[in-house]
């Protein structure tokens, strides 16, 4: 981000983005009568996103979870500061990989409550420590295979963050309690690996073979009747991913004023990842729109002749990610910092503007209406 951009310039840019989102949304509604794109139109984009976006990212998650499990094993075999650091590095790598797929909540991620069991956040905010301590104090560490039935707060990456960062020192003591902590740590890393393995396996082959479900819609397909249906699931991920960044990761922490900021609500304070997660989450979403090969929803937009919209989307993602990077500190510190707080506020506005453009202009341009009543859960 260029530092010589004045606040006024930024405000103009921002309000421009918002104004564009709103006025063009109306324009788009007016031209909604235009012929719907043919179904084949979506097939190529779906194929590209599944093969180049979804599958490699879940493979990467599986690999990171495997490494994390061995780092946990090594730590518990011979506890020491060096191995604790290795395990923490493994945790960061697994989290980075998770931020690359956490928007892909459909298909394998919703089977067996995998997404919730892998990363029950923000739902479990404030409940992870107590859930883990309860397991440690209670009847015992769940046996392999029983972990999936434990509290969601105690069985995924948040539980591991608690064990490795908040209570890392307790793992290194030479006592029975440390042994129990290590036993739970092993159970948790095994569980994380099993979930990541199941996700990757169900996407590419096996009984579920979700890659095939997305590639071959039809009357017998349980998930998608048409390529457009499958595209809608991917599109929903893009929209909901932006919504999650704004509504769960930024807004509650920022508050209406510096005094109303709530650093306590920031994500992963123990491992200092709150801003890093926002940046990597936005990068994953940007890649859904346009990846380094020029694939993604951008192809649909360009095929529809919406050159201006395509440029706007690209620029909006670029600006938003630049703002997120410019924060440079964990969110919990930034919201109370005179210089950084305005950047967080700007980031929230930009993510919301982006979401609004996706919901209105982009949805209309590629024929994937986001329903008024359909997304409510009411």
């Amino acid at each position, binding site marked *: 981000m260029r530092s010589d951009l004045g606040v006024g310039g930024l405000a103009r840019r921002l309000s421009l983005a918002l104004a564009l989102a709103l006025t063009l949304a109306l324009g788009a509604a007016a031209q909604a009568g235009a012929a719907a794109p043919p179904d084949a139109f979506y097939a190529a984009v779906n194929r590209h996103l599944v093969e180049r976006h979804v599958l490699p990212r879940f493979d990467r998650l599986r690999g990171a979870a495997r490494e994390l499990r061995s780092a946990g094993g090594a730590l518990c075999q011979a506890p020491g500061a060096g191995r604790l650091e290795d395990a923490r590095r493994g945790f960061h790598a697994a989290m980075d990989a998770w931020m690359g797929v956490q928007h892909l909540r*459909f298909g394998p991620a919703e089977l067996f409550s995998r997404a*919730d069991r892998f990363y029950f956040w923000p739902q479990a905010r404030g409940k992870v420590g107590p859930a883990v301590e309860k397991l440690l104090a209670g009847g015992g560490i769940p046996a392999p295979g029983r972990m999936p039935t434990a509290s969601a707060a105690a069985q995924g990456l948040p539980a591991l963050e608690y064990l490795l960062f908040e209570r890392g020192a307790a793992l290194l003591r030479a006592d029975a309690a440390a042994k129990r902590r290590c036993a739970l740590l092993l159970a948790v890393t095994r569980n994380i690996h099993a979930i990541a393995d199941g996700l990757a396996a169900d996407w590419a082959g096996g009984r579920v073979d979700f890659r095939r479900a997305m590639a071959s819609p039809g009357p017998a397909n349980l998930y998608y009747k048409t390529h457009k249906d499958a595209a809608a699931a991917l599109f929903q991920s893009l929209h909901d991913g932006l919504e999650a960044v704004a509504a769960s990761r930024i807004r509650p922490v920022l508050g209406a004023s510096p005094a109303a900021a709530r650093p306590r609500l920031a994500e992963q304070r123990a491992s200092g990842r709150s801003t890093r997660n926002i940046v990597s989450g936005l990068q994953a979403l940007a890649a859904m729109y346009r990846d380094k090969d020029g694939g993604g929803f951008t192809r649909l937009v360009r095929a529809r002749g919406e050159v201006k919209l395509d440029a706007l989307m690209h620029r909006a993602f670029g600006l938003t990610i630049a703002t997120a990077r410019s924060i440079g500190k964990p969110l919990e510190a930034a919201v109370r910092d005179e210089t950084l707080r305005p950047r967080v506020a700007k980031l929230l506005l930009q993510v919301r503007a982006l979401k609004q453009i996706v919901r209105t202009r982009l949805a209309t341009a590629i024929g994937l209406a986001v329903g008024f009543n359909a997304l409510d*859960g*009411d």
Partner: protein
Amino acid sequence: MRSTVIERRRALALLGAVGLAPWLSRTAGAGPRDIFLSARADGQGRYWFSGLDAEGGRRFYVVLPGRGHSAATHPRLPLAVVFARRPGRFALAVDWRRGRVVARFAPPEDRHFYGHGVFSPDGRLLYACENDFEARRGAIGIYETARGFARVGEWASHGIGPHDLRLLSDGATLAVAIGGIATHPDLPRLKLNLPTMASALALIDRRDGALVGRHRLAPAFHKASIRHLALARGDRIAVAMQYEGPAGDLVPLLGVSERGRPIRLFDAPAPAIRALRQYCGSVACDTAGAVIAASSPRGNVLTFWEAENGRHLFTTPVADGCGVAAAGGPGRFLASSGRGGLFLIDVARRRVARIGPPPRAGLAWDNHLVPTGG
């Protein structure tokens, strides 16, 4: 919550101090019949509460402070209370004959509405589904009509996420759809407890808050959230669900509980269930109490079923169709869409007719249509 002095006075004048009788006598006989009430958005960020006649003509509209959801109709007066969509906290009492707001009220600071309510048979009390979000429990707030809807008490809802409720014919038993999903206004649309959620149909005595019955679904369906209710003939309670589990699961989203008996899920053909896309937005029963209509804005369909045996009658496409209400005789329904359309459906003839003036761009009917006649 803000409540202007004038509005409070007007409410008191209408409902309390001068008694209901004079107003009632002016109203009796001459009142328009079959008005339908619904919240809507106008595409410019404003939200409204509207009255429609059976031809889709606009009878009134009042502006809302935020997005509305459903409404409760007074059994004797041309009065309806429209509630905020969750996690909203406003409620407006509207004289639907004149299209005027007569009172505004809100739950306590640590509660929000779920969007549904129901009056007692004499209209003296209003029961509203509420979220006691810090305690993660559901509540049924009790408001007294004649005191400008002052909150006079609450009952426990006996389950998380009470969403919709109906009063059975005994005038005492509230049937409450316990959605089972915990939410908090800090994270407005996020579901906090899906791995452990437990939905139910609770039967609560409105006089003392006692739980007189509770029906749950089989453990395999624990992620099916009972959200909306309709009453069919003989106090059959139709339940409509939203499934929070995997998209490929085959879960009947509709069922019926005959008073005091467990929920019997409809044994529907798979295509009819799949067409709902795991999501029922609204449910209603026709005037004869024999046909159940269930909408799915996600599946873009309206479906119709026999109340007696759960037999699937037919399914018709309506894009973003959600609001549905009994209209004009047996087997007839009015339905509304998030894209602004209104439809009259004749189930026996399988006829669907678009009615009313062409919708303005951006007009979106909200989830529920409420008939003043029922």
